[in-house]
């Protein structure tokens, strides 16, 4: 998702909702990147061969008992702390009963009334304004298997069954599609910073379910809500929510009733449609799982995890803006991924502190090349040190900004150090005024018509002369010196 641009302008205004107001809450299921499953030692690599990573516990063989994965608890606490949640020191696993063939036990082990994390919040910027969305809870649970449907029958792969999930539930605080998408991006970014979830939306490691309802402005109670599932990109979060808001307003306006249901988003048609119209509301009959003891953790456990928390993305963006004096937009782009932010800071260091130049080179040249070749900063052929050194060479006047572009592409293809490239290719900037003067004299001598026209007042021709001189010096003349000397010489002195 790193390729998705930072959202800066809200594409959907509230104006077209008339006197209606949307109320949105989001449930995010984040797959925790542990090696083994939540309650057993089977591998979480669900991309393995069909049913290759299953065991007695996740297939619900009689007598098999669940044993909690320590790292899953640690990751959950870590995310809870990053979301500013209170961490419950004695939390309880409960059984959520429903029947579906990819859930062999007939219940999912989840948390119900005593979840691990509660009462947090998430901050982000939307349209340059800081927004705060509350986190109701974040609890641990296990994933189900994967079903594929073939008309006459369905096929079940249980590789994914039992994979640890953290379900993060927002308060009903979100008021528009752009805000919904930005909230999801923010949670995603935090998970990636903490390195507790790989965040892959296409593979289902990060899933967003959006609860949407609308009401007349001024109303204080919530109307019937609809849950939208199957949204696998942040852009689709925005589109699906927008569609659903307008659909519901339309229903109310035409006197149709909204039924509480689950709808799926179809990105091809850009609409939502009802998934199942079960007459009977879900009745999961939760009760504490007698196979599992309460999860008891103490302050030292929590504090040990707290000490491993990295600087979080928004804090880091704010620090970048203040200490590096770069625009808000730049600071948000540069902190999208932890590795990118680390890379940028290393460039600044190697460049001797020129943060603005570092930001420009990373955000334009480097990110363009990375995107085109589908690479990340981790696999970039140009190391942060080399990019920083190259900027230092510009600042020292060794190379011009124009030559730097050549050095940059040479670094990209060869991975060599900038000094080596400059030496090997003889790219050192010409600052010797006599050499530049000589080139200027030659150009003026070779262009009598242009010289006459310029002296007659055609100022625009100045660019022509600069171009000719740069060409004659293979682009290596210092642009500053060329400008100075040219002006003098053309003036006829």
């Amino acid at each position, binding site marked *: 998702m790193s390729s998705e641009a930072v959202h800066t302008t809200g594409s959907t205004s509230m104006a077209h909702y008339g006197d209606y107001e949307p109320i949105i809450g989001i449930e995010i299921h984040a797959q925790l990147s*542990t*090696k*083994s499953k939540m309650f057993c*030692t*089977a*591998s*979480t*690599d669900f991309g393995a*061969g*069909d*049913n*290759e*990573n*299953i*065991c007695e516990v996740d*297939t619900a*063989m009689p007598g098999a008992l669940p*044993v*909690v*994965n*320590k*790292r*899953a*608890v640690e990751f959950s606490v870590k995310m809870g702390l990053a979301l500013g949640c209170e961490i419950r020191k004695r939390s*309880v696993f409960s059984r959520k*009963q429903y*029947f*579906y*063939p990819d859930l062999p036990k007939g219940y999912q082990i989840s948390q119900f009334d*005593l979840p691990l994390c509660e009462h947090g919040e998430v901050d982000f910027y939307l349209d340059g304004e800081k927004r705060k969305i509350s986190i109701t809870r974040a609890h641990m649970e296990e994933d189900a298997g994967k*079903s594929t*449907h*073939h*008309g*006459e*029958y*369905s*096929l*079940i*792969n*249980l590789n994914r069954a039992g994979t640890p999930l953290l379900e993060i539930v927002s308060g009903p605080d979100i008021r528009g599609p752009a805000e919904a998408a930005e909230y999801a991006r923010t949670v995603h970014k935090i998970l990636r910073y903490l390195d507790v979830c790989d965040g892959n939306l296409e593979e289902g490691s990060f899933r967003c379910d959006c609860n949407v309802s609308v009401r007349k402005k001024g109303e204080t109670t919530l109307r019937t809500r609809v849950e939208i599932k199957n949204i696998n990109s942040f852009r689709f979060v925005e589109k699906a929510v927008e569609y659903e808001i307008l659909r519901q307003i339309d229903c109310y306006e035409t006197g149709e009733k909204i039924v509480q249901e689950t709808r799926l988003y179809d990105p091809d048609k850009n609409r939502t449609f009802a998934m199942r119209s079960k007459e*009977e509301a879900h*009745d999961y*009959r939760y009760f*504490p799982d*007698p196979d*599992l*003891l*309460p*999860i*008891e953790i103490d302050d030292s456990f929590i504090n040990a995890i707290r000490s491993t928390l990295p600087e979080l993305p928004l804090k880091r963006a704010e620090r970048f803006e203040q200490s590096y004096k770069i625009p808000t937009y730049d600071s948000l782009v540069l902190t999208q991924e932890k590795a990118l932010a680390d890379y940028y800071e290393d460039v600044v260091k190697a460049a001797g502190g020129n943060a603005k130049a570092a930001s420009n080179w990373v955000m334009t040249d480097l990110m363009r090349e990375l995107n085109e070749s589908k690479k990340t900063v981790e696999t970039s052929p140009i190391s942060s040190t080399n990019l920083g050194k190259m900027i230092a060479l510009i600042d020292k006047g060794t190379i011009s900004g124009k030559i730097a572009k050549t050095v940059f592409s040479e670094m990209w293809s060869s991975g060599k150090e900038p000094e080596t490239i400059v030496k090997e290719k003889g790219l050192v900037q010409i600052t010797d005024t006599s050499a530049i003067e000589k080139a200027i004299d030659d150009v003026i001598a070779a262009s009598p018509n242009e010289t006459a026209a310029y002296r007659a007042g055609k100022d625009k021709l100045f660019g022509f002369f600069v171009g000719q001189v740069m060409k004659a010096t293979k682009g290596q003349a210092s642009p500053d010196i060329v400008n100075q000397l040219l002006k003098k010489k053309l003036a006829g002195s």
Partner: protein
Amino acid sequence: MTKDNSNKSLDLAAVRKVAELSRLELTETEMKAYAGQLAAVLENFEQLQAVDTKGIEPLVTPTDLSVRLREDEAVKTKDIEPFLSNAPARSGNLFKVPPVV
């Protein structure tokens, strides 16, 4: 819970709902029989609910043991055949079940 509603039979609709949630197929006669039995069970719970539990922490588990967490180590499944051979139907290494949708 303070009300004394010792009506001897449970609403048939309630029995039907519980049966459906549990995927049990019951005849009308069975439902009537269970309605009476379930009412007796509920009555017992009503007695329990009448106890004043103010100030007492809800009991989640009867033991004082605390959970033992397992280190995150994955073990490769040695043989998946025993799991699949238990299934009524399969397709390759996938479980085959009646259509869901």
